[in-house]
């Protein structure tokens, strides 16, 4: 699996896009989606919510388990992906694209975000 070069990654397996006009997109990685299995329910933060870097802001349920969703940035949620709420399987089929989770107007980001190469090392052999 390949992690897009232009994204940055958290150790909790979220990805963060480069901000445009101060707004960045958050999702979970293909590695995380594969580890979860079929996602059946996504509880996402709502528009207007404040999320905090490194803290939980939602949950993803799969057949076998539930996982907390961590925000890699601090800021205000300006969009949540209704397509994923309606069809959580998008997280599995297109984790880096149509399966994005929410968009944040960033005020601060986690200081230990990883590059694609660093994230690939983190997940190598797992």
């Amino acid at each position: 699996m390949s992690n897009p070069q232009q994204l940055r990654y958290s150790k909790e397996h979220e990805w963060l896009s480069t901000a445009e006009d101060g707004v960045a997109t958050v999702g979970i990685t293909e590695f995380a989606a594969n580890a979860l299995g079929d996602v059946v329910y996504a509880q996402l933060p709502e528009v207007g919510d404040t999320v905090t870097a490194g803290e939980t802001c939602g949950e993803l349920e799969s057949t076998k388990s539930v996982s907390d969703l961590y925000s890699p940035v601090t800021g205000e949620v300006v969009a949540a992906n209704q397509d994923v709420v309606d069809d959580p399987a998008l997280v599995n089929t297109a984790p880096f694209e149509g399966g994005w989770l929410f968009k944040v107007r960033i005020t601060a980001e986690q200081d230990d975000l990883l590059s694609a190469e660093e994230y690939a090392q983190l997940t190598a052999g797992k």
Partner: protein
Amino acid sequence: MSTAPRLTALDALHRSLGATMTDFAGWDMPLRYGSERDEHNAVRTKAGLFDLSHMGEITVTGPEAVKALDYALVGNISTVGVGRARYTHICQEDGGIVDDLIVYRLGETEYMVVANASNAQVVLDALTERAAAFDAVVRDDRDAYALIAVQGPESPGILASLTDADLDGLKYYAGLPGTVAGVPALIARTGYTGEDGFELFVSPEHAVELWQALTKAGEGVGLVPAGLSCRDTLRLEAGMPLYGHELTTSLTPFDAGLGRVVKFEKEGDFVGRAALEAAAERAATNPPRKLVGLIAEGRRVPRAGFPVVADGQVIGEVTSGAPSPTLGKPIAMAYVDAAHAAPGTSGIGVDIRGTHEPYEVVALPFYKRQK
């Protein structure tokens, strides 16, 4: 003692298929090959191929094999004909369930007991001890068999293309020795999915050959390899208990709603008889809790151990829960207080990480195939 996981004869094949593997009772087993929901749906509508080689086979032979089993188990094994099988339990002296089993009668004086992987050693030890006073031999055959299951509505056609055995004459819970794809196999019409299907016990050296032949035979009808993840949702929809979840040593078969497997009418004593007679009485007059089905009104998924609540009080506990691919909703099995166990009971909640999500009590199973 080594803690390295045990590998089935099909291990390399699973890895070449890209399986996500998981530890199960010390075995490295395929959890899923791709989407577990797709695998689940394939078994319901077409067919799925499972490696179940972790299951524990124990052979009991000898002139008194049947007497030994009637003493060791709660079922009436002496009424099982040659070529037939029986679902039963092995219990402790206090009536607690040690394991649930399928006993196949392979010959006049030869029986194969199939135990859950997690209990195989305990069952082997118990059978050995309980058979000691009889003219019978208990043999550990765990390494003698690989077990491949083909399950789903297309499975009879797939198997028929590979064997001359009389599958039409092979009823549910029957088993006969035969040849499949040139490989000697015990062909059993059993399973754990709620669908028609077969379990094929073969020598491990023939496992890859058989798996590949079944894969090829099923190519045109939608057969897919299927992992333990979908096996769990399939059995849950079918209302089938899983040891360690619905069945434990702290419950008797009567507590689990499976009192019918206990045959007091059989001749002679059996391990647990006195305690089970008391348990039967208690279940009939004053049942503490009952095993029920729960269907979610929302989308959050109940998991084993979550409390079941009513009016703010804990009235039960979830034993198994999962999103049901067939119903499209989360479902669970749970033990609940008898007062809340009637199908249709509403106002029940499952405490999912602090929030009481609404659930409805239903009769089991959640899914029954159309015959």
